[in-house]
């Protein structure tokens, strides 16, 4: 019994870590290029999930709906950049101005979702969809395996994109020093738009998978954002590898924490971890001084 419980906790931790990885990859990608904490990132993820909710309700097939949902998130992300962040960049606004504007976007998107779809909770898949697998004594649903697979695939693609393509070099140059990148003739403003598109699509994917796993609600974005932000900080903000480490550390701490403490404290455990890191190692696992 004890061993099965342990296996289940490990499985849950890995799946939670995979979900947080997806959200933190996009978050870190955008942070790397813009150097501000995009509070709208979670709401963009929720937009993706609701894209799928809308498409399936309209009778679209599941694969097509997922593509639509991911694109919705990507497009919403680009719109926030074009309408709000790009003008702020041109004005050379302080980081706190960006953050407060992104909080405004977060509130606005959440209210749009509540007005359009209602504030209540909806399952994104009919209950009992998909098989349940038994892996070393832990039961894992098909959706959860999809979460894990997508996280591995997304991290892999992103890694190849950043390491081995010209496009990746440009992004890395931009993250290193925007001014120098500009001098080298890179259209940094447009590149940041592309980064917003990529990062927001990743967020959308995370939102959709989280919706498949636990349903959708307009307020789901805040939870995703906070888990993503905690993963990024714990891993070292802006570092993609650190983000993945942070995401899995958070997944394990949360799930093993409820072995000792009642499960309703799960959220508080995450933020306890964050506070400990903020006090003792604010630059995170992989962060540089």
């Amino acid at each position: 019994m004890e061993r099965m419980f342990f296996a289940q906790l490990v499985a849950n931790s890995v799946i939670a870590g995979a979900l947080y990885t997806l959200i933190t990859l996009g978050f870190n990608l955008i942070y790397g290029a813009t150097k501000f904490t995009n509070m709208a990132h979670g709401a963009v993820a929720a937009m993706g999930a609701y894209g799928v909710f809308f498409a399936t309700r309209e009778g679209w097939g599941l694969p097509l709906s997922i593509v639509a949902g991911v694109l919705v998130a990507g497009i919403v992300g680009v719109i926030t950049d074009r309408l709000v962040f790009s003008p702020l960049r041109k004005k050379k606004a302080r980081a706190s101005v960006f953050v407060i504007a992104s909080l405004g976007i977060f509130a606005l998107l959440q209210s749009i979702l509540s007005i359009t779809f209602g504030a209540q909770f909806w399952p994104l898949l009919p209950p009992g969809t998909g098989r349940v697998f038994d892996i070393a004594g832990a039961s894992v649903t098909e959706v959860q395996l999809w979460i894990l697979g997508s996280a591995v695939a997304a991290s892999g693609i992103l890694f190849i994109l950043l390491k081995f393509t010209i496009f990746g070099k440009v992004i890395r140059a931009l993250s290193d020093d925007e001014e120098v990148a500009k001098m080298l003739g890179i259209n940094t403003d447009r590149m940041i738009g592309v980064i917003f598109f990529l990062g927001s699509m990743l967020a959308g994917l995370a939102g959709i998978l989280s919706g498949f796993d636990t349903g959708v609600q307009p307020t789901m974005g805040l939870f995703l954002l906070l888990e993503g932000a905690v993963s990024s900080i714990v891993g070292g903000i802006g570092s993609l590898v650190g983000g993945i480490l942070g995401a899995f550390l958070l997944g394990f701490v949360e799930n093993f924490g409820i072995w000792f403490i009642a499960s309703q404290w799960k959220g508080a455990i995450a933020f306890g971890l964050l506070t400990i890191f903020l006090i003792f190692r604010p630059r995170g696992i992989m962060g540089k001084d």
Partner: protein
Amino acid sequence: MSYLLHLATFFGIYAILGVSLNLLIGYTGLVWIAHAATFAVGAYAGALFATKLALNFFLAMLLAMLVAGILGSLTGWIFSRLGGDYYMLASVSWNYIVVSVLINWESLTNGPLGISGIPKPSLGELSFAEPTKFFLLTLVLLGIVYAAARFITNSSFGRVIKAIREDEQAAKVFGYNTLMYKVAISGMGAAMAGIAGVLLASYIGFVDPSSFDVMESIFILAIVVVGGFANIRGSLVGALALVLLPELLRFAGFPAEIAAHVRLGLYGLALILFMLYRPQGIIGEYKF
């Protein structure tokens, strides 16, 4: 008339919150998105002192200020050594933790059901149960908070705080213990927010965790943004504008259920537009 009085009382409570948050954000430059949590600590502490210990409202208020102030200094001490983005994220987490504690510590807070039966203020023979009197009490307390905030920001203490906001290293070079100054202003701001919390608890007669989520913190932040950072008078204007704004929705005929969501959207829009076109707020002096 009674409805106007209700709005005026709410204005008073939110103006106290706006002024106290402005002390924190406007004068330290650190974006604190957990003022709803501080507000909640004040409201719950006041409610518990007034119901479980059956203390007089004013005594409960002083104790609630003390609790909120101590907790505010503590979070200020932990978080304010962090830079801007980290501070802000830590504050959002703090808001989340406080709400989570209010929901889960059932033996003390009665969980999601909240605490009801919170008495109206009274002082000997004088009762403030009647709405006009409650409003006047709110106004007096707002006046005291406003005067205190003006006094703090105009004092030599306030000038040091502003100097830290502009250049912390320089302030350190001049021998100021900048951390202690930030802790002090965090504690003062929190104690003031505690007053607003006790007023709300007593006015509604009921507190529950759902009133103090991150969205409420964003609303209080919007008051400061609209009014203008580092301008105490601006926060009065901001509170007036944002408490009255939703009333226009009522006249526009939105059903109550949707109006709450539209209101949130409007606050979000206000934050975006002010950041884009007028980051110093309506009458702000400090370009954030």
